[in-house]
């Protein structure tokens, strides 16, 4: 899929762990892992909003479009 999730980079920059983010956002670590690995088919606006709020970033910092 040409949409890349840069969650790992953002987490590293913020010094936050995956399970911490999952807890703040209110999703399971398994679902966060699906999101991080790019296996997710869609992301809810509410989840994106919660991630942006937790990481203090913009949706564009997390999502990136890369041409195949």
């Amino acid at each position, binding site marked *: 899929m040409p949409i890349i999730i840069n969650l790992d980079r953002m987490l590293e920059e913020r010094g936050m762990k995956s399970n911490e983010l999952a807890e703040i956002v209110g999703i399971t670590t398994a679902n966060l892992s*699906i999101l991080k690995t790019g296996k997710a*088919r*869609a992301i809810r606006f509410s989840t994106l909003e919660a991630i942006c709020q937790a990481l203090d970033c913009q949706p564009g910092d997390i999502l990136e479009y890369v041409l195949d």
Partner: protein
Amino acid sequence: MNFSFFNEYDLHSDIELLFPITSSSAAVLQFIYSFFLYSAISLIVWLMLKIVNSFQSNKLFTKYQITGFSLLGKLIIWLSVLDSIGSFLMRIMLKSKLELKLEISTFWLFIAIGAFFIVLSKIFERAYQLKSENELTI
């Protein structure tokens, strides 16, 4: 081998046998034909029961059900077609009568049932895709 019972049965009964048994080869042929026919019907019933049982586990739109419905539909259609061909050939061989029957009550009904199961498997396949898409929405 004595076939007097069959001949007597044929003569004194109002019920006409589909293929009157007049010789040992006809009896063997009839037996083999019936054996395969009823084996196939048993397989269909067994498969149907397996699919119905899979619904009781509260898991819907699984790969198992999709494959099962598809297989069931194909089996029913193939069995109807093969049975029609088999009956046609048996009539030629045993009754020496050329007869082609495509009755609405039997042949087309079973074709429709088979097609229904194939359509059902397609619907389940689409539902499975939507379900997995929904599960992968974070």
